[in-house]
């Protein structure tokens, strides 16, 4: 896949993806990066991920606290807020509304 | 010196761009001259001189009023009070001479048998006195309308007062009248001497008063201490 194009797409939805991962359980940065990779989005570097988390925190979509995990050192755990859930729902609808016509256009062109 | 010249230059530039004012400044003395021209030429010349005095002092009044808010900031920008009032005065003197010149030529061609040197000196006195007079009134009266009315009063008194009376010498433009009499009626040289002296004295006096008023107004205030950057 064209790496530059993928990066551009990712910039638009990475915050929503993070919110989606946090919907069901709290998590910390490294774990989120791994989960994104596992989900098939591809490797996300810390330099990309943490600024997104900070912005989500600043805008009140997630909260964060430092806590000792079950094993290992203290980590900064992120939890989604009600505001974050609302943003996730809205973002999901917007994404679907955006991606459906794009997919339509692309497949039509391909069939001609 | 550079500062004073710049102020003089800007005063002139402003004046030259006020086309309406400039036209009226030329029209007024011309009207004064023509209105009595069919009768006695001496009266016409005297009216013309008053017209020039009035025009130049009014221009000075307006220039001073217009600069009222500008001057404090120029003071802060590095001008001393004398740069400002002397610069303005020089500018107005030059403007006055430029206005007077065509009228001198008019008289020289139109009115025969005069002492033209005397006419020139009389015009010089008008311009010399009018500039500081207008500046002074502009500085003392905050609004142009009041200043204009005061100038009107001065010129009217000047026109109506008996020039031989004791009080006449206290009017600012008595000099030009006295010299005009010498130039038109070929009276004895005492008129010229008295007039020239009066013109010189009034001009110097006016300049001194203007200097005092501006130095006071634009003085460094005692409550304000300036420390150098260190």
């Amino acid at each position: 896949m064209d790496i530059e194009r993928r990066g551009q797409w990712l910039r638009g939805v990475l915050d929503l993806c993070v919110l989606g991962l946090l919907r069901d359980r709290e998590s910390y940065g490294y774990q989120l990066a791994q989960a994104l990779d596992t989900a098939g989005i591809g490797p996300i570097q810390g330099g990309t991920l943490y600024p997104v988390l900070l912005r989500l925190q600043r805008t009140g979509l997630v909260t964060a606290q430092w806590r000792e995990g079950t094993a290992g050192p203290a980590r900064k755990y992120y939890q989604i807020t009600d505001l974050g859930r609302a943003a996730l729902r809205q973002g999901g609808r917007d994404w679907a509304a955006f991606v459906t016509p794009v997919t339509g256009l692309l497949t039509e062109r391909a069939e001609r | 010196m550079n500062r004073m010249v710049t102020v003089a230059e800007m005063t002139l530039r402003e004046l030259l761009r006020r086309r309406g004012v400039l036209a009226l400044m030329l029209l007024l003395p011309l009207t004064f001259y023509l209105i009595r021209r069919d009768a006695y030429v001496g009266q016409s010349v005297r009216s013309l001189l008053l017209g020039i005095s009035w025009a130049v002092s009014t221009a000075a009044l307006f220039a001073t009023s217009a600069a009222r808010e500008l001057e404090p900031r120029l003071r802060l920008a590095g001008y001393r009070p004398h740069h400002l009032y002397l610069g303005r005065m020089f500018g107005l003197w030059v403007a006055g001479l430029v206005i007077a010149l065509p009228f001198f030529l008019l008289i020289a061609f139109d009115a025969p048998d005069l002492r033209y040197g005397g006419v020139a000196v009389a015009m010089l006195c008008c311009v010399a006195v009018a500039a500081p007079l207008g500046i002074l009134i502009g500085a003392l009266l905050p609004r142009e309308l009041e200043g204009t009315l005061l100038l009107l009063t001065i010129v009217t008194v000047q026109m109506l007062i008996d020039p031989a009376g004791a009080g006449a010498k206290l009017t600012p433009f008595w000099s030009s009248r006295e010299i005009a009499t010498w130039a038109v009626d070929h009276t004895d040289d005492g008129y010229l001497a008295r007039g020239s002296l009066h013109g010189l004295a009034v001009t110097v006096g006016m300049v001194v008063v203007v200097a005092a008023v501006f130095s006071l107004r634009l003085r460094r205030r005692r409550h304000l201490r300036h420390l150098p950057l260190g």
Partner: protein
Amino acid sequence: MNPDEWLRAFAAELHHRRVRPDDARHVVAEAATHLRDGGGDPAVVFGPPGRYAAAIAESIGAPPPAPAAPGPVRLQARGITKRYGRRTVLRDAGLTVRAGQIAAIVGANGCGKSTFLRICAGLISPDEGEVTVTGRLGYCPQQGGTSDFLLPDEHFVLVGTGQGLARGQARRAGRAAARQLGWDAPGDVLTRHLSGGTRQKLNLTMSTLAEPDVLLLDEPYQGFDRGTYVDFWEQLGRLRDAGRAIVVVTHLLNQLDRVDAVLDLTPAGGTVRDGGAGWGGRA
């Protein structure tokens, strides 16, 4: 660069970008944890320390880079009392402004804001009190500080000559200062034909042209549209960061988050309170 070196460099960059120490500590710790968990070269995982610090600073919404500590006192007004007849306009008002600070004078109409500023500029005398100004003083009146029948360039020359600038220099300096306000001063339009807002830009440009150390502005933005108004405050920010001491008379309270001190001259007031809370902890 090993992880420890990278983290140290990163911490220094955050400090340099004026990220608050608390925030910086958290971000550095989080990055350290991440590196411990996942390994990898920090320069690949996070990128160069400077670029990552810039991204973090932007995400946190840190204040723009500016000298942190205010400089020496440039303007000090103490015990200013002014009466007009029997009416006391100012009673024991005072203000201290340091290099690199903006102070706002606020208050209801007629409470003596302009009077206070004119006393600071030395244009009128107070009945009591004194003002000390260090360095060069610039003053921008509310209106009328320009000349209708002169060109903008001629204004620049007039002000510049007072500073001892040559004409060409003065014109260039004036046009450069005008551009800071988003205004391209035209060479051939008389001031009387400029719109009210543009005339105010000229007015303001004249006061900054002389590069004063202390700049006193009396509601200089009347007639400004929204964009110019933003340019104006940005220009003030630049002047502040360049170490100027600035006093603005204003009635627009929504701009107070950009200033370092406020003098409220509303009659019961006359006290200085600290502004700047909205500037992310600028003290």
